[in-house]
């Protein structure tokens, strides 16, 4: 009798839960529509900006023909854009993949924390990659630039303000023979993560493409100081 009751209660609870989940989803549909329209607006503005930047590049080039100095400055502006991460770049390097272990038997795990990828892990890996000479890095296609922050926001990670989830793909252009051992060496950070239960793979590649930074640099507060 008791057991039957228990099962009934269980089923009832599940039904109740399903209903409440259903309701929340329905209630949020307005917000979802709003989000989609905001996202659409952002994307079309971004395309417009890309077009304007192309246009600027063209007029700048045709305006910078009057003196040798102008021509040099125009070339320097283009070089700086590469350093600022405002262009897509390619080259040799390594690709690190991090995934949460989906085969973990939750009953055997007291502390699930070790199986997850945290902001500290990503900050550490980025630091280690630059320490071993990386030229350019992206995490799930978010380019790492001088103003990039990697932060936890509830149970998701935000990079350049964009949401990033597992599986995580870190691409780094640089010298593979230097970057790979720096991270994969025995006792190194990736091995520690793997020991904790994160699924880690590292692959060297001759041809990696890293997308450009899609954000905007702000320079409202800095002015040149050495004048």
């Amino acid at each position, binding site marked *: 009798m008791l057991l039957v009751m228990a099962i009934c209660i269980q089923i009832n609870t599940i039904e109740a839960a399903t209903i409440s989940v259903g309701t929340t989803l329905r209630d949020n549909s307005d917000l979802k529509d709003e*989000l989609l329209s905001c996202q659409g607006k952002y994307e079309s503005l971004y395309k417009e900006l890309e077009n304007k930047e192309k246009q600027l590049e063209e007029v700048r080039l045709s*305006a910078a023909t009057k003196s040798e100095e102008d021509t040099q400055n125009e070339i320097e502006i283009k070089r700086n854009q590469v350093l600022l991460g405002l262009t897509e770049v390619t080259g040799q390097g390594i690709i690190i993949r991090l995934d949460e272990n989906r085969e973990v038997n939750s009953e055997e795990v007291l502390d699930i924390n070790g199986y997850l990828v945290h902001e500290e892990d990503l900050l550490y890996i980025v630091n280690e990659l*630059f320490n071993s*000479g990386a030229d350019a890095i992206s995490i799930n296609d978010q380019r790492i630039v001088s103003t990039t922050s990697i932060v936890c926001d509830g149970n998701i990670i935000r990079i350049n303000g964009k949401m990033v989830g597992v599986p995580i793909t870190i691409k780094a252009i640089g010298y593979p023979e230097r970057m790979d051992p720096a991270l994969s060496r025995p006792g190194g950070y990736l091995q520690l993560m793997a020991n904790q239960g994160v699924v880690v793979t590292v692959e060297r590649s001759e041809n990696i493409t890293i997308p450009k930074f899609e954000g905007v640099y702000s320079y409202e507060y800095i002015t040149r100081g050495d004048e």
Partner: protein
Amino acid sequence: MKKGKITITITIGLTFLILTAVIFIQFKTINQTDITSLENMREDELRTEISNFKQKSEEISKQIEETNLKIAEYEETISTDKEASELLEKELEQQNNLLGKNDVKGSGVIITLTDTKEQKITAQDLRELLNQLKLAGAEAISINGQRIVYDSYLVDIGDTYISVNGEGIVSPYEVKAIGNPTYLESGLSKKQYGYIDTKLEEGKDVVLTRQDNITINKYNGDLNMEYAT
């Protein structure tokens, strides 16, 4: 009597089996859920995401205006057959300020972190601080005079010093950041979970001051990419 016990045992056993299976299925489902997809977002996450996109759209709109202005200025030099030197130099200067090729000045905050007998400041403390400053909108940062650039890194060298861009620095660590002082200060000073409270809780010596006129030196290394084209 005995038969009854067996039945109960079997029933309990079966119930547990079913419940375990349900829990397991539940976990599987959670595992397979993509938390970044729209379908799985909670109300507060949706609201944050909406305001994020609105803010980004504003930034992009501003950038479009500035780009339009630059285009118009260049076009004018072309149509009047004048040199574009000033415009080029202005663009170059903005880029060099951001990249760390120029000394820069402006308002912001200075954070001083000092080793104590009990608690030493580590490279990780500084990395976390840089991350929080960037999140709060810092436009230029230096640590003990070392400019932080796009490929800067910080590592502990033994117990004695920290290496920034390959240069050794020691406590006290003076981190200068130029940006909106209010955002920078409030970003670090969030109660309990903010950077400063977290570090104070760990027993570390961290002090923040706002300052109107901060000068940050240029990077003294070379900025170039060897492998990326």
